C-alpha cells in the first residue's frame, strides 16, 4: 500500500515538474509580422533622445536615424550638401546663402522651413565646440524665405561648411522650430525629425529598446550613399535597437540569429565570433577611436610642464593598445592628434608613440623639482573599453620614480569627480584616461583636448595656453586647406611641447554582423540606412 502511495506522490511531483518544463518548452515562434525587421544591439542603451543636449554617441546615432543634416561628409571627408539643394558664398566670403531641397517634410507632416533651420543651428551653437566657434564669427543667421536662409559673418571664417557638415557630436541636426526653441540645457520634448526613420515613441523603453520605422515621406538624394552623405535609402521597414548588457548573451543572440548586428562586440569574443559561419566581423568605423591620458594642469606638480614632459617620455602606446585591445589587427600606434588617416594627419612633434625613453623621463623628472608628491590616477573599473589604461600608466610612471595612487571608481563617479578643480585632499585628481572618436577630433576646433582656455571654457584638466588659442583661432580664420594643414601641424607640436594630453594610440572597434545583412556603410557615425536583409 505504502509503495503505491509513494508512486502516486512521485507521479504528482513528476507531473508538476513536467508541466513546468512542457510549458517552458512551448517553442512556437513569436508571431512575426510581414515587415522586414532589422535587429541591432547598440553599444549602450539609449536614454537621452536629444543629440544636442549630450555628446553621447548613442544619442548621436539615434539622431542620424530620425533627423537630417544640412551638409554631410563623404568617404574622403569632403563636405557635401544634404538637406541643402544649393548654396552661394559672396565674393567677400562674408555671406553664405543656402536653399533647402524641395519637398523636405518632418515626421508630423509639416514642411521643413528656414525658420526651423535657424532655430536648430542656434540651439546647436550653444553646446557644440565647432558651433560655438562658428557663432563667435557670426553676425547674423536669418531666414530669407521659407526655403532660403543666410549666414552673415563678421569676418571670413574657414570652417563654415565643415561646421555644418560635421559628422559627430554634436551634429547640427535640424528639428522643428518648436523643439529647437527648447533651451540647450534641456531635453527636447519630442522626437520629430525629417530623417529616414520615424521614432516610435509608444515602444520606447529608455535603456532597453528603441523602435524606428521607415519614413515613407523621406526623399533620398540621388547620389550614392557615402559616410554620412548621399542618398539615405531605407530598405527595411523597421529597426529595433535592443540593449544587451552582457557580452556573452549578446554573442549568443547573434549566433542564434535573434539579432542581426552587434555594434561593439568585446575584443576577447572576436575569435569565437570569427569561427561562426554565419557571422562576419566588419570594421564600419574606418576613422577609429583614440585613447588619451589627460592631466590636470591646476594640480601640483602637474602645473609644472617639466613634470608633464617627463610623463610624456615615460609612456609608449604599444603597452596601452596591447593591454586594452590585444589584437594588433584592431589598433595602430600613431602620434597624430587629428586622427591617423584624416586630411590633417601628421607625425610632427609626436613623442613616445613607439618607444618610451625611461632614462630621459627620469632625468627630466629629477630636473623638474618633483619631490615625490602623490599622483592620483582615477581608474574606471566598470568601463571595459578603457579600464586597462590606468593600470598600464601606473607601473610606467612608478618606473620613473613617481608616487602613484590608483583610485578605482565607476565611470560616472569619475565623470563627476573630474569636474572638480579642488586640491587632492578635497576630492581633486591628477590624471584620467578616456577614448574619443576620431570624427570628434579631426581638426583643432573640433578637438576639445587642444583648447587652451583654462578654467574659462577649457576641457577638464583646464589647459591654459594663450599660444595654443592663437593657433586655433588662426586655423579657424584660414580658408586655404594647405595653410590650414600647416597650422594644424603647429597645433600638434604645441600640444606635445606643453603636453595638453598624451595620445595613447588609435583603435578600431569592429562590428559583428550576420552574413545576410548587406549594404552596411562605413561611416564616422553608426548609420543604418542602405541596409538589406537577405
Amino acid at each position, binding site marked *: 500500500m505504502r509503495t503505491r502511495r509513494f508512486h502516486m506522490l512521485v507521479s504528482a511531483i513528476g507531473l508538476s515538474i513536467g508541466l*513546468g518544463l512542457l510549458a517552458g518548452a512551448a517553442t*512556437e515562434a*513569436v508571431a512575426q509580422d510581414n515587415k522586414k525587421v532589422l535587429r541591432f544591439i547598440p553599444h549602450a542603451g539609449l536614454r*537621452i533622445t536629444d543629440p544636442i543636449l549630450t555628446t553621447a554617441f548613442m544619442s548621436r546615432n539615434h539622431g542620424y536615424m530620425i533627423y537630417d543634416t544640412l551638409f554631410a561628409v563623404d568617404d574622403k571627408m569632403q563636405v557635401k550638401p544634404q538637406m541643402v539643394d544649393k548654396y552661394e558664398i559672396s565674393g567677400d566670403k562674408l555671406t553664405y546663402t543656402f536653399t533647402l531641397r524641395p519637398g523636405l517634410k518632418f515626421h508630423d507632416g509639416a514642411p521643413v522651413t528656414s525658420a526651423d533651420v535657424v532655430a536648430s543651428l542656434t540651439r546647436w551653437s550653444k553646446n557644440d565646440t565647432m558651433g560655438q566657434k562658428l557663432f563667435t564669427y557670426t553676425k547674423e543667421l536669418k531666414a530669407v524665405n521659407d526655403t532660403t536662409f543666410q549666414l552673415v559673418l563678421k569676418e571670413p571664417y574657414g570652417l563654415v561648411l565643415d561646421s555644418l557638415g560635421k559628422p559627430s557630436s554634436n551634429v547640427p541636426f535640424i528639428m522643428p522650430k518648436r523643439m529647437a526653441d527648447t533651451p*540647450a540645457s534641456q*531635453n527636447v520634448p519630442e522626437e520629430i525629425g525629417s530623417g529616414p526613420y520615424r521614432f516610435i515613441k509608444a515602444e520606447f523603453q529608455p535603456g532597453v529598446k528603441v523602435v524606428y520605422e521607415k519614413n515613407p515621406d523621406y526623399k533620398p538624394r540621388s547620389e550614392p550613399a557615402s559616410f554620412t552623405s548621399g542618398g539615405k535609402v531605407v530598405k527595411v521597414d523597421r529597426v529595433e535597437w535592443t540593449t544587451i548588457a552582457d557580452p*556573452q*548573451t549578446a554573442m549568443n543572440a547573434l549566433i542564434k540569429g535573434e539579432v542581426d548586428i552587434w555594434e561593439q562586440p568585446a575584443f576577447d569574443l572576436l575569435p569565437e565570433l570569427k569561427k561562426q559561419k554565419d557571422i562576419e566581423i566588419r570594421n564600419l568605423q574606418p576613422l577609429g577611436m583614440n585613447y588619451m591620458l589627460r592631466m590636470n594642469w591646476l594640480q601640483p606638480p602637474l602645473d609644472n610642464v617639466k613634470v608633464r614632459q617627463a610623463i610624456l617620455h615615460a609612456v609608449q602606446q604599444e603597452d596601452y593598445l596591447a593591454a586594452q585591445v590585444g589584437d594588433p589587427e584592431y589598433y595602430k600606434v600613431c602620434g597624430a592628434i587629428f586622427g591617423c588617416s584624416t586630411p590633417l594627419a601628421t607625425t610632427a612633434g609626436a613623442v613616445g608613440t613607439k618607444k618610451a625613453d625611461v632614462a630621459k623621463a627620469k632625468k627630466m623628472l629629477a630636473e623638474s623639482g618633483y619631490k615625490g608628491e602623490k599622483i592620483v590616477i582615477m581608474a574606471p573599473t566598470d568601463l571595459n573599453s578603457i579600464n586597462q589604461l590606468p593600470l598600464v600608466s601606473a607601473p610606467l610612471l612608478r618606473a620613473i620614480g613617481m608616487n602613484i595612487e590608483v583610485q578605482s571608481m565607476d565611470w560616472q563617479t569619475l565623470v563627476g*569627480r573630474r569636474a572638480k578643480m579642488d586640491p587632492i585632499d578635497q576630492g581633486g585628481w591628477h590624471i584620467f584616461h578616456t577614448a574619443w572618436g576620431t570624427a570628434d577630433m579631426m581638426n583643432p576646433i573640433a578637438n576639445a583636448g587642444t583648447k587652451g582656455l583654462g578654467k574659462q571654457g577649457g576641457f577638464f584638466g583646464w589647459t591654459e595656453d594663450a599660444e595654443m588659442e592663437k593657433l586655433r583661432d588662426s586655423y579657424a580664420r584660414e580658408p586655404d586647406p594647405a595653410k590650414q594643414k600647416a597650422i594644424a601641424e603647429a597645433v600638434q607640436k604645441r600640444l606635445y611641447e606643453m603636453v595638453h594630453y598624451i595620445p595613447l594610440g588609435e583603435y578600431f572597434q569592429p562590428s559583428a554582423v550576420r552574413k545576410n545583412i548587406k549594404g552596411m556603410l562605413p561611416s564616422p557615425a553608426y548609420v543604418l540606412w542602405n541596409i538589406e536583409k537577405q
Partner: protein
Amino acid sequence: MLRLILSRLVAAIPVMGVVAIFVFLLLRLSPGDPAAILAGDTATPEAIAAIRADLGLDRPIPEQFITWIGQLAQGDLGKSVLSKQPVATMIGQRVEPTMSLALTTLIFAIAVAVPMGILAAWKQGSWFDRGIMALSVAGFSIPVFVLGYIMVFFFSMKLDLFPAQGFAPLRDGLPAFLERIALPTVTLSFIYIALFARITRTAMLEVLNEDYIRTAHAKGLKEHVVLVRHALRNAAIPIVSVIGIGFALLIGGVVITETVFNIPGIGRLVVDAVLGRDYPIIQGVILVFSGVYVLINLAIDVAYVLLDPRIRY
C-alpha cells in the same frame, strides 16, 4: 483581520518616511553628477553647469528634498534625469518582466520543492532523502549566473529548444511568454527549490513525530491524508514564512538572472539608474518596493492567521 490589515498599513507610513529620507540623503551624499553624465564626455564645464542648474541640482539639499516630498505627496515620483520619462511609467514598463519571473520562479519552486521536502521527511534517511539533501546543497552552492550560462549553452545553443535571451510579455501570447521565461525560471528556481525543500523537510520532521500524527495513523487514515492534511498543515507556518521572505528576496535579487537572460526588469532598471546617477528612478523604485515588501509581510501575517486559528494579532 481587517483591523490587522489597517494597523499594518498605518504602521507602514513612518517606515516609508524613513526610507524616503534615507534614500534621498544617501544619493545626494554619494559621489557622481547626473549633469555631467547627461552632457556627455566632451561637454564643456559651462554646459554641465547649465544642465545642473536646470535640474535644480545646484540648489541646497533641504530645498531639493522639500521639492521631492511635495511631488510625492501628489503621487508624482518625478521624471528620469536622463530620459525625462515619468518614473512611474518606467517602473510600470519594468514591473511585468520582474514580477513574471518572480512569480513563475516562486510557483515552480514551490511545486517542486514542497513535495520533495515532504517526501524527504517521510522517507527520512533513505536514498531519496539523501539525494534531495545533496541536490539542496548543490542548489545553494552553484552561482545563478553559472547555472544560467549552462542552461543557455545546452537548452538554447546546443538543443535549440529555447531562445538565448529576451522577454515576451503575456500580451504576445502564452506560448511566446513561456518560451522566453522558462530558462530564467528554472535557473533562478534552483536556489529556492533547495531552500524550500530543506525547510519543508525540517518542519515536516518535527511534526511527524508528534502524538497527533501517531493518533491519525492509529485511526487508520490514509498516508497522504496524514501527510497533507495533518502534518503539512501544522508544518506550514515556517514554510510560508520562508516562501514569503524568498519572494521578497526574489524581487530584489533577480538582477543577475535578468542580465544573463537580457530581461528588462526592475533589477536592471535600478543598476542602470545607479550607474547613471538617475536619482528620481532610484528613489522611486526603492520607495515602491519598500511598499511591496510591507505588503508581502502583511500577506504572510494574514496567511498565518488563515493557516493556524490559534494565532491572534
